[in-house]
């Protein structure tokens, strides 16, 4: 155990952990909302996020962020954010349409729905991973830029965006971390208010509690489910953009680990509970970052998994309880 | 003096702020058919669930053959000799009718992995006995020709009959029937009434939840009436029929309901 390093860097470790946690929280929203409404683990949500990272990368590279600065750079980044949100939302909606709606209509068992989700997850990841091959068949590969073609590990974005650091009370803080944390928490508050106050949000909550009664009261269940996927997708898009801003690199399998961690965050906070997702994400991010400082970065992913197993055993309803959905035994 | 097989003593059950059962006390004598009636939401099924171990009473006691069964696991209670059917049929849909009944018969068996793997004598004996008993019960219920149909493919009435056969297969002393006649036409109800009597004549004690007053009056020896989670009357069918509290609480409403 490396206590010296841990204690001398505690503030930095905490802030970086919070930044990762904020990203987990944004992805966790997608899991938590879909679970709240459908009692279904949307296993493929990780790929919704992964597509967002690629959208960010492509837009940033295509618009030449490396040579831009000031207002121009901000415009490029906003374009990248919108592109990531759009692509993620599109994938989420497609998922709902292809992999879930036929099952929901038939009232299929939850295990079958989960298997469908796993299948969809692999299809989406592999399509991204094999896109150079597919482009090859279509004789497009000569026209593709290097950054589009590289599927395995794509770090073309590295260095494209400057990331100034500043110091507060002797602690060096990355401006990106601050942006990530503030943006994520801002989005969460916005969403929380939206679900609480808007007509659509009330429809989502009603459907989560009792789909049949909600339908009788005039809430269109299919539409509500669609919107739930849409919101989850948009949030995953934001998460993807922030993730790329922070780490610069992505690959077609990046979704799996982040997906499992985000799901852990959702369960940790209490699945179906929006505020729980935020709390769970931040707790997980910090725990993971502290843990890796203490016992070594190679154990980072193990920490998340162990935490997941422990929570499910000790307190399966999570820190804040399950609130979006109905109370279940 | 007949011996009480089941004694429910001051049973109280609360869910959060809601009191589902409030200080309910009654008993069932060995070999009788006891009717448990009351308007919707009176706590009949909740009472069943407490007896069979689905809910744990907030306070009070349940004695079965003199011993408390509060806090026992559900399958332990079944093995001790209480079996039940469900208001909404809960068979094992993709298993055959015969297999459904065999699962019930297995409650009294102890064949494990290795016994089954090596086909030891115990496995053979239990398999043969269970099979004979299951076929006997299916015949008793009149559905033996459908022994190999999947439970899901049986008609509604046959599914209800299969549930009773499955419960009887666990070799219980007390069998709890939760609205077994729900959805039956009058002719089927009469048939079922005779059947319940035959079940009793085979030596089972029967606890019956039923909505249909004619059926309850015709078949039971004694009746307990619940309303809003409390017992409001107890006695023979004739006494219950004339009890003003029961008429006020239940009969008037139900007449409209039933016809």
């Amino acid at each position, binding site marked *: 155990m490396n206590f010296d390093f841990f204690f001398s860097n505690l503030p930095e470790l905490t802030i970086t952990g919070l930044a990762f946690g904020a990203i987990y929280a944004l992805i966790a929203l997608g899991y938590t909302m879909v679970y709240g409404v459908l*009692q*279904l*683990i949307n296993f493929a949500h990780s790929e919704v996020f992964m597509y967002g990272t690629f959208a960010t990368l492509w837009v940033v590279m295509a618009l030449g962020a490396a040579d831009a600065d000031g207002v121009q750079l901000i415009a490029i980044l906003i374009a990248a954010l919108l592109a990531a949100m759009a692509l993620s939302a599109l994938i989420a909606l497609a998922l709902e349409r292809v*992999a879930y709606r*036929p*099952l929901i209509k038939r009232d299929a068992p*939850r295990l*079958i*729905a989960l*298997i*469908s989700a*796993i*299948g*969809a997850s*692999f*299809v989406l990841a*592999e399509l991204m991973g*094999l896109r150079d*091959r597919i482009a090859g068949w279509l004789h497009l590969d000569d026209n593709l830029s290097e950054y589009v073609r590289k599927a395995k590990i794509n770090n073309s974005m590295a260095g494209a965006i400057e990331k100034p650091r500043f110091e507060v009370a002797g602690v060096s803080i990355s401006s990106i971390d601050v942006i990530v944390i503030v943006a994520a928490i801002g989005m969460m508050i916005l969403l929380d208010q939206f679900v609480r106050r808007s007509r659509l949000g009330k429809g989502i909550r009603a459907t989560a509690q009792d789909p049949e009664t909600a339908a009788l009261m005039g809430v269109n269940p299919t539409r509500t489910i669609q919107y739930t996927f849409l919101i989850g997708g948009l949030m995953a898009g934001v998460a993807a953009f922030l993730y790329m801003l922070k780490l610069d690199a992505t690959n077609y399998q990046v979704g*799996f680990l982040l997906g*499992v961690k985000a799901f852990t965050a959702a369960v940790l906070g209490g699945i179906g509970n929006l505020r729980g997702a935020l709390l769970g994400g931040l707790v997980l991010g910090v725990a993971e970052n502290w843990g890796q400082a203490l016992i*070594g970065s190679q154990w980072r992913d*193990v920490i998340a*998994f*162990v935490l*997941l*197993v422990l929570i*499910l*055993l000790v307190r*399966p309803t999570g820190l804040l309880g399950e609130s979006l959905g109905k109370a279940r035994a | 003096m007949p011996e009480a097989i089941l004694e429910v003593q001051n049973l109280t059950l609360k869910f959060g702020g809601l009191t589902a059962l409030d200080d309910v006390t009654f008993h069932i004598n060995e070999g009788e058919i006891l009717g448990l009636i009351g308007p919707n939401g009176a706590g009949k099924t909740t009472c069943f669930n407490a007896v*069979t171990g689905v809910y744990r009473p907030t306070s009070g006691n349940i004695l079965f053959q003199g011993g408390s069964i509060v806090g026992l*696991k*559900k*399958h332990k209670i*079944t*093995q001790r000799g209480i079996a039940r059917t*469900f208001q909404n049929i809960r068979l*094992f*849909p*993709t298993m*055959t009718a*015969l*297999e459904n009944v065999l*699962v*019930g018969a*297995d*409650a*009294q*068996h102890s*064949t494990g*992995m290795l016994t*089954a*793997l090596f086909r030891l004598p115990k496995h053979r004996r239990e398999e043969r006995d*269970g099979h004979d008993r299951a076929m006997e019960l299916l015949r008793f219920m*009149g559905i*033996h*020709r459908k022994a*190999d149909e999947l439970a899901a493919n049986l008609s509604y009435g046959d599914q209800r009959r299969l549930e009773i056969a499955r*419960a009887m297969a*666990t070799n219980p002393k007390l069998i709890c029937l939760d609205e077994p006649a729900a959805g039956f036409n009058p002719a089927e109800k009469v048939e079922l009434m005779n059947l319940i009597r035959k079940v009793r004549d085979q030596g089972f004690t029967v606890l019956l939840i039923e909505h249909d007053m004619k059926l309850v009056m015709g078949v039971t020896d004694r009746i307990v009436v619940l309303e809003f989670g409390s017992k409001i009357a107890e006695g023979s069918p004739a006494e219950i029929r004339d009890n003003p509290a029961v008429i006020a609480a239940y009969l008037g409403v139900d007449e409209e309901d039933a016809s």
Partner: protein
Amino acid sequence: MNTGLKSKVTSLPKPVKILIWLLLALLAYALPLLEPPILSTPDSDFASVLFTVSIYCLVALGLNIVVGYAGLLDLGYVGFYAIGAYTVAILTSFHASWPLLLAIPVGVVAAMVSGIILGAPTLRVRGDYLAIVTLGFGEIIRLVVLNTEWLGASKGINNIGRPPNVGDAPDGLFELPHLFWGNGTVLLDTKDTTKFLIFGYSDAVPFYWVALTAVIVVLFADRLIKNSRVGRAWEATREDEDAAELMGVPTFKFKLLAFATGAFVGGLAGGLFATQQSFINPQSFLLLFSILYLAAVVVGGQGNRWGVLIGAFLVAYLPERFRGFEDFRVLAFGLALVLLATLRPQGLLPPRRTVRAKQLEQELDELEEGAGGEETARA
């Protein structure tokens, strides 16, 4: 579909049926020697492919007990497989030099014990949570191996023990020639022979025979257990856990039993895999494999042991036969999972009413005809 054929087969006298089964088994054993043209794999060693197929069959049979019979979705099955493989590797090569025949039972028991340790707390959580917990377990096992020098870390472990030879090396008791399929002619290839019974590096045939034997034994055991109180308890638990409990089934105990049995078979498969490969590293135990195994079970028809074997064959064999498409196999199986779930959730060969039940129906009919008078009198 082919009920005519099916009823013809089931109505055959028992000795004939046994004979047919024996012939089929013999054919399965002889397959790597026959190397039939369409079936055999041009791009890779046919015997090795058959060995892989057998291992997948074994794994699928084990996972079918957990997923198909007991209805517990296990996404970390590869973890048990890894525990079996690593126990064998450590005991025969890395930290000891036990004989393989002793190491495999230990590996199997280790896998089973880990199944119980994982199952005892987790089998109480909700079904879909269980899927995620097992997924986490599978990844933890892999990551722990990857980061532990004592377990070979990323370099892996080589020189894993082999089964003892029968007869003296290098030639064994006798040699079995393979067939060579030329243009329209079939020749005995005297240069390409399998030595009976030498477990060497170059010839996978003896390993295939061992794996096939394991598949047959597990298949028999599966059948015996399924048609018993244990099998019924599993199915009842899968169908309706509460109702099963109220019918006297100790559901938790039986779920744990299913988990341990599945782990047992998974550990056995892992041990056999390790000895044939002679070298293992964490790359052989990726999450991907858990998903492929699940695909094998679901594609074939969970709950039906023959369907599951077909699924395992498809998942293991097709990518080897069509090597050019290997990169696309995950895509294909992902697609297959979605399509099966949305179009045919019961799989290619869904479980059906057992032959035993069919026979009973006949017996009943005969009885009915004989005792018709009595029946009407009673009613």
